[in-house]
């Protein structure tokens, strides 16, 4: 297997992009990444696109061909990868495997979701859970995470304020991110007084409905310096599966897929949690950000709330979490998220993150979850 490097990244602004279509957004992100990598589109050999639900959101399947066509990339092979909200992370992983195996040299991995063309996106989001035995019973997607939150509070004494602090830190970081959907600061009180969605989770615990796209360009590590002075190397690409239904988990306060993917990633990179300088975690809800801090091994199980409260995950803390603003405040266009997380870590490693730059970062991680933990992808990158 060959080592793989990232030579270009791009992300559209995330938000309610009324004036942009599905195909416009992915083409914009792809062109941005190609330009960032200093290559010609004709040099690309394959494309992988993460997308959760174009069929339900914009009634379009067969999007791989549509994107290749509109991006002027025909006849290269293009494949859509779907794993709910982890679709982007898996598109990245498939691109990495294609380059590592020697099957292709220069590959683009991208992600896109257009969520605001439907009036009510909640049924589409719910299809990431077990449609038959969760959604049809009347649970909503936020209520599944709310049940994890309640159980975590019960087992470990985690407080509402600690969960709220996770959102507050995300927004503080997003206020310095020009591509973020909600670049404004919020307070713990605002979170605690926001609309109740599914007790104990409130509106400001939840990631928003977003449109957006992102893309990265991959090549063999040995060729990377032909294109850029700051290649970013892929040290680990790991993925794990878990049960689709939350009720089938051994524990309601641990996401096994995260634990398993993280273990594989640390082994691959020959690293430990203390080697990681910053991480973009999948905080679709504040509780999932907290669980990730624990399940990725940064603190012991049950200590996530206290760690967040004490500032460990702030941008100047021991392990900065979500310098981009995370899913909560950067935005969460489902299929694009895993790629946007990667773009953020690449900018941070290159020293191009502007006002939210983490000083002297050498190693960064991304953590991307599908559904309530049926899929997890964990990647480690270095300078």
């Amino acid at each position, binding site marked *: 297997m060959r080592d793989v490097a990232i030579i270009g990244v791009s992300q559209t602004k995330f938000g309610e992009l009324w004036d942009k279509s599905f195909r416009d957004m992915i083409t914009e992100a792809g062109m941005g990444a190609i330009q960032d990598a200093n290559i010609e589109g004709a040099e690309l050999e394959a494309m992988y696109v993460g997308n959760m639900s174009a069929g339900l959101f914009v009634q379009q399947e067969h999007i791989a061909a549509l994107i290749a066509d509109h991006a002027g990339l025909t006849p290269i092979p293009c494949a859509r990868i779907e794993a709910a909200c982890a679709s982007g992370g898996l598109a990245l992983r498939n691109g990495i495997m294609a380059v590592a195996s020697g099957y292709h040299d220069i590959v683009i991995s991208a992600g896109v979701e257009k969520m605001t063309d439907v009036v009510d996106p909640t049924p589409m989001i*719910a299809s990431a859970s077990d449609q038959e035995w969760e959604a049809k019973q*009347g*649970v909503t997607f936020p209520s599944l995470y*709310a*049940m994890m939150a*309640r159980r975590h509070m019960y087992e470990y004494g985690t407080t509402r304020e600690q969960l709220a602090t996770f959102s507050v830190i995300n927004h503080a970081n997003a206020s310095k991110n020009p591509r973020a959907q909600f670049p404004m600061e919020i307070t713990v009180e605002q979170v605690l007084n926001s*609309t109740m969605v*599914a007790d104990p*989770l409130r509106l400001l615990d939840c990631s928003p409905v977003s449109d957006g796209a992102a893309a990265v360009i991959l090549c063999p590590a040995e060729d990377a310096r032909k294109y850029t002075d700051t290649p970013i190397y892929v040290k680990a690409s790991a993925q794990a599966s878990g049960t689709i239904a939350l009720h*089938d988990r051994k524990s309601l306060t641990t996401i096994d897929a995260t634990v398993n993917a993280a273990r594989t990633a640390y082994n691959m990179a020959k690293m430990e949690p203390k080697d990681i300088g910053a991480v973009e975690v999948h905080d679709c809800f504040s509780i999932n950000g907290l669980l990730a801090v624990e399940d990725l091994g940064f603190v012991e199980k049950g200590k996530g709330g206290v760690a967040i409260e004490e500032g460990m995950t702030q941008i100047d803390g021991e392990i900065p979490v979500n310098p981009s603003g995370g899913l909560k405040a950067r935005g969460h266009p489902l299929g694009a998220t895993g790629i946007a997380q990667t773009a953020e870590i690449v900018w941070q490693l290159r020293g191009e993150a502007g006002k939210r730059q983490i000083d002297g970062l050498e190693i960064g991680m991304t953590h991307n979850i599908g559904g309530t933990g049926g899929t997890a992808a964990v990647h480690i990158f270095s300078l």
Partner: protein
Amino acid sequence: MTETVRAWRHIPQRYNLIGSKCLQCGKVFFPKRILCPECRRKGKLEEINLSGKGKILTYSVIETPTDEFKDIAPYVVAIVELEEGAKVTTQIVDYDIEKIEIGKEVEMVFRKIREAGDDGVISYGFKFRIKD
């Protein structure tokens, strides 16, 4: 039409809480499975009638529902661990909100789950209530 068939297919399980038990490892599953994920080919699954008694592992009060369930909001959902060991996601009904807490004993009741949708079928199935 296909939605009608889909609803019909699960009627025995939804009406009577029929699950599977693996004769090899003893694990109980709900809904029914045709393969034990622990034992795989070495496992042997048979149907089991679940008692419908269990306790609340966790719950949430849904105040912002989907359109389909907006008429009953706010309502309580929970993950219930049945006495046979399988866990189910369910609504809790006939409740006094003060009495809902983790660990509470609950029992299955038979109720309407949803009004008629596009398929014209009203679906019924299990919900749970606090045991007196």
